[in-house]
């Protein structure tokens, strides 16, 4: 009884597989399991899954993850060609790496996903690397770890350190320039609001700029070689808050408002310091590095203090 079924299934399986491939050709962006189900409603889920797995294992289909769920896509014949000669395990590992897109994946996670022993994985990775199918990229998050991704992909910024890193070097100057530019923008806006002499409410509201506004201004300035996101600009704006030059407020915004995220918008404006520098820092003692060693009669004392002398002579 089971034999017959298997034969039947086998024939059916091939047909299912072909149908799936046809569907994939029809929908090059990929199809979900649901689509296959709709197309062939009489097939049991178990059967469907088996066919799909076979197609995946033989390298005819790609597995992708999307917002809608799992997607099956026809594999690119080029890469499919390259895969010729690799065994299934390699294909599996390759697929896993491909799924990780440009964010890459640690070897440990590859092991977890593929259930293959580590030694096997390492062999495969070496192999794939030599075939120039994949590459290893150092992650800025943990300098000793590497992530693997497809050879021709541009690594995502979270791997390389984002806009602020260039070859693992933190771009202090660049950050500084952005910091200054953002501040200038906000300062100008605040001044304009003050000079407008409108009623206080309007003045205050017009002194604010959303992070989106600032982001747009910076992009238009064209000073960045890298593409900056609004979030990137927000991290810069935050440093201005810690510089005591800018303050932020969050307002509710309707979904879909330009620059809003999750129903909120961040607004920033330039502010003045509330006090002048303290009296203490107007004296050499306030800044003195040897203050604790200073006492009358000692090697370092008020009467022989060089800092005082310089300060008095100035």
């Amino acid at each position: 009884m089971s034999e017959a079924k298997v034969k039947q299934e086998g024939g059916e399986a091939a047909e299912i597989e072909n149908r799936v491939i046809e569907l994939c050709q029809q929908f090059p962006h990929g199809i979900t399991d649901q689509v296959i189900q709709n197309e062939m409603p009489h097939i049991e889920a178990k059967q469907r899954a088996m066919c799909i797995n076979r197609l995946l294992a033989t390298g005819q289909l790609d597995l992708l993850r999307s917002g809608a769920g799992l997607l099956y896509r026809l594999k690119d014949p080029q890469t499919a060609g390259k895969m010729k000669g690799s065994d299934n395990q390699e294909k599996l590992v390759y697929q896993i790496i491909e799924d990780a897109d440009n964010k890459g994946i640690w070897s440990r996670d590859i092991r977890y996903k593929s259930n293959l022993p580590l030694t096997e994985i390492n062999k495969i990775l070496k192999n794939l690397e030599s075939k120039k199918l994949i590459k290893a990229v150092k992650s800025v998050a943990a300098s000793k770890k590497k992530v693997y991704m497809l050879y021709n992909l541009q690594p995502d910024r979270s791997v390389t350190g984002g806009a602020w890193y260039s070859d693992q070097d933190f771009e202090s100057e660049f950050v500084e320039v952005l910091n200054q530019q953002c501040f200038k923008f906000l300062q100008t806006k605040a001044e304009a609001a003050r000079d407008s002499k409108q009623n206080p409410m309007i003045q205050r509201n017009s002194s604010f700029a959303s992070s989106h506004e600032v982001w747009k201004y910076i992009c238009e300035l064209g000073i960045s070689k890298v593409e900056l996101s609004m979030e990137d600009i927000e991290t810069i704006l935050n440093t201005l808050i810690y510089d005591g030059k800018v303050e932020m407020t969050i307002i509710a915004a309707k979904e879909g408002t330009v620059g809003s995220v999750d129903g909120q918008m961040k607004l920033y404006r330039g502010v003045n310091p509330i006090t002048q520098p303290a009296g203490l820092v107007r004296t050499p003692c306030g800044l003195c590095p040897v203050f604790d060693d200073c006492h009358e009669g000692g090697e370092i004392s008020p009467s022989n203090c060089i800092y005082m002398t310089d300060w008095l002579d100035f």
Partner: protein
Amino acid sequence: MSAVESKLCSLLLQEHYGEIVDRVGTFLIRTGNQPLRVIANETGTSLDQVKKALCVLIQHNLVTYQLNKRGFVEYKAHVDRFLRILRYPRYIYTAKTLYGDTGELIVEELLLNGKMTLSAAVKKVADRLTETMEDSKSMEYSEVSATFTHLADTHFVQRCPTVQEKDATEGRPPLAPTLQMNEKEMYIVPKLNMTGRGKRRRSSDDDDGGSQAKRPKKEAEDSQDDGVYWQVNTERFHQHFRDQAIISAVSNKMDQTSSEIVRTMLRMSEVTTSSSAAYTQPLSSNEIFRSLPTGYNISKQVLDQYLTLLADDPLEYVGRSGDSGGGMFVINLHKAVASLATATLESLVQERFGSRCARIFRLLLRKRHLEQKQVEDFAMVPAKEAKEMLYKMLSQNLVSLQEIPKTPDHAPSRTFYLYTVNTLPCARMLLQRCYKTVANLIERRQYDTKENKRLLEKSQRIEAIIASMQATGAEEGQLQEIEEMITAPERQQLESLKRNVNKLDASEIQVDETIFILESYINSTKTKAG
């Protein structure tokens, strides 16, 4: 009472009351309550001198006394009052801004003499003002008296504690009179019939007018308010300084109008809010509107907008406390004082270690606890720099490190190391630094002056000679000859010395401003907690 504070007190006493008073005062500061003979013995000062010194110290409200359990009189030094000597110029100047020259001189005389009766003060001030007036004019006592009353009404001067009647036993004065002051009478000015005007000094009198004490005879009018003494109420001045600082902050951050509104609110709260309160009594927007200065022309609507903006501002100096009367508002005094102190701490880090460090400092203030990596990320500084800055601040106790173990074995690799800023200890430390700084400035000034003592004396002698020659009508040529006795390089040296002394003096005053802010914050926090 730290060594640093005691050193500063000693210098202040020395400069203003002489070495004997310094010795006695400093001894009391360092050792606490002491009876007369212990002071004499331990300081190696004669009993007479100690008595004189104590009289001076008590007269100037720096030391008080009480009978101890065994029947001895013990003397107690009030450290904070000693340190106030540094602030005398600020009290006098403030009185000037509020009550003109008359107010200025009243406060000055009270500070110079410690305590005075109304009648004595009025006469002295009238005389001094008369000196500055045109030849035929003089100052009316009643005018001075009126200003004095204003000062009392607004609590800038107050009654000194007086002797209680019951102390006088058998006609003999008590060992140690008990002095008390009834709160209700603290600011009541006795109704004196003071008619008269200020008198000029006779030109032949060399007396600089400062020592009124050499007059042994008492005038009839003194008996009117005999025994009723007044002193400067420094707490009230401090309240004024605090208010000024708050108004100034609002003006800097926001605008003139906002600061005027805050000034009005503070003025309305002056006598209804105790000096240690965390916030003022609630004021309604209607009341505030009515109390705005007469020149101020903003509509009620606009006022309400300003009040809303003040209440919503991240500064949080103004808070909402209800909806009646058009909206009720308070000033968050403790919050304001704390924010001023924090700004002072930030200022120190900024000027001493630079803006990157200041950024990290402010970051820690906001986020409270951060690991080093988080500091790097938020402040956007490279790891090496972050480490350096944190270490610098750590070694100066501006920042501290907290260990939070993740696992029970406290293994370092599984422990959170969190950086944090504790504002109160930080402020305390900075305050000590301020005290020592002022002491340093004084010592340097004294040293520079001493180094040039001979030259200074020479210059003074020459000036005296020239003055007397001018008085006897000497010729220009003769005067010039004398003047030339000071050579050009000597003149330059003198000018340089004067410039330096001025700079050192001016910086003492400015450091005292920082002292004030930090002390206010520390005291405000103490009362809040206690």
